[in-house]
């Protein structure tokens, strides 16, 4: 009988190795699996391996072509920024003239224009000019002078851009002329509808429109070999020869430069409704009131009132 000095310990040489050897022999004698199934699978596995290698090479090439993957935080940041910009843009899109985000809305609109050089760009600008004038008209109708003024300033800026774009004749001339005529019509209507305090803005925009119409008329005349019309002349009037003064239109024919004398696409704009004329008449009335003795102005804080006190 063998005595174990350390009952908890197993002697490898005396106990483990003989047992392993016995079991290995036992299995070898009792169990010999057929290797044929392993050989049968070999081709399938190798074919799969070749396919995988080919696919991974293609994937590696694609990865090289596409460049390094962007880190997640960059993607998340870009997404958040686009969400913020989109939300602000959405809010700005509903802001009308005079409201805080109206400027942003105009910027977004200008960013959505067709690219420079495209024939659609000036047409899109003309549509934006129409929108600005409509906004001014609506603001005037509800008595919101601040909004009307903001829309007129925007219209003026849009007009300047249109003229800059049309310098290289990318605009179909008929389109531009019609757009300018339409603008003149609307502005003339505004001049009569809006109170006197809004007149400078209207007058400024109208002046720009008229100058643009005159420039285009001059260009047309130069192209046709005819003399350039004077600055006050109606650029919409028929070219060449003398024109008969229109009885129904005091501004027609030889009208002075003081009135607008604008011819819209559908006819002549009546001169008495001219905003500049209205302002002038207002100023004349004020002057009369000042110089007439014994009839002081009720609000005597202005220069006229001071003169009266003296």
């Amino acid at each position, binding site marked *: *009988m*063998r005595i174990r000095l350390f009952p908890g310990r*197993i002697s490898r040489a005396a*106990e*483990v190795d003989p*047992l*392993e050897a*016995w*079991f*290995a022999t*036992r*299995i070898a*004698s*009792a*169990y*010999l*699996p*057929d*290797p044929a*199934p*392993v050989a*049968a*699978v*070999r081709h*399938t*596995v*190798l074919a*799969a*391996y*070749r396919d*995988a*290698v080919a696919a*991974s*090479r293609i994937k590696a090439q694609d990865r090289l072509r596409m460049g390094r993957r962007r880190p997640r935080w960059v993607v998340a940041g870009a997404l958040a920024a686009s969400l913020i910009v989109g939300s602000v843009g959405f809010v700005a899109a509903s802001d009308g003239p005079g409201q805080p985000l109206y400027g942003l809305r105009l910027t977004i609109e200008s960013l959505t224009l067709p690219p420079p050089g495209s024939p659609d760009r000036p047409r899109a600008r003309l549509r934006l000019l129409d929108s600005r004038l409509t906004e001014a008209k609506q603001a005037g109708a509800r008595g919101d002078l601040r909004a009307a003024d903001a829309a007129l300033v925007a219209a003026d800026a849009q007009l300047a851009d249109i003229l800059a774009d049309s310098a290289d004749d990318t605009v179909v001339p008929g389109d531009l002329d019609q757009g300018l005529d339409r603008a003149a019509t609307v502005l003339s209507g505004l001049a009569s509808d809006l109170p006197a305090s809004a007149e400078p803005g209207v007058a400024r925009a109208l002046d720009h429109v008229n100058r643009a119409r005159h420039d285009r008329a001059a260009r047309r005349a130069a192209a046709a070999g005819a003399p350039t019309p004077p600055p006050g002349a109606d650029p919409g009037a028929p070219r060449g020869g003398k024109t008969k003064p229109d009885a129904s239109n005091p501004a027609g024919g030889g009208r002075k430069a003081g009135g607008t004398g604008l011819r819209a696409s559908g006819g002549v704009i009546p001169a008495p409704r001219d905003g500049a004329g209205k302002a002038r008449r207002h100023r004349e009335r004020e002057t009369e009131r000042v110089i007439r003795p014994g009839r002081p102005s009720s609000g005597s804080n202005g220069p006229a009132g001071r003169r009266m006190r003296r």
Partner: protein
Amino acid sequence: MAVAGAMGGDDEAFDTLYGLFGERVYRYALVRLREPADAQDLVQRVFLSVIEALPTYEDRGVPFGAWLFRIARNAVIDIERGRRPHAALDALAEHPDPAPGPARRAESQADRALLRDALLGLTADQRDVVVLRFFGGLAHAEIAAVIGKREGTVRALQFRALATLRRQLDPAVWFAGEPDGAPA
């Protein structure tokens, strides 16, 4: 070398790996599963998984054999979950012997039946160690990595398992070696 070659897309290196491990995986699967066809399918499944996972293999102290057999063991466990307990080991006795000859076949079939019964008498851990060691051909360290135990524990499990098996399979030898009949 073969592993590095296979990771680099070398056909021959991968074929070498298959030659080294294919049959061992098959034997292991055959003991654990019911049918040779199932064992064959498992070999294919294991090597397809290896192909898929090979680009992510890193030798962090786990030998490649252990890594591969971990895949095989998980696949076997997945299959065994859907079966009745110990059904797989029945195949050990039913599996036909490739070596012909009625006398040899009868002898080895009887031996396999004894072996099956003896293996069923082991604990699950002991059986796992014995099958991986003697059918999968893994070293103790590799078995430890496969089943997630320490190497010493694996050795102890194997020793107890073999002692039990010997007591059941060859009681005459056992009692001849240990006259007092006290197992270790």
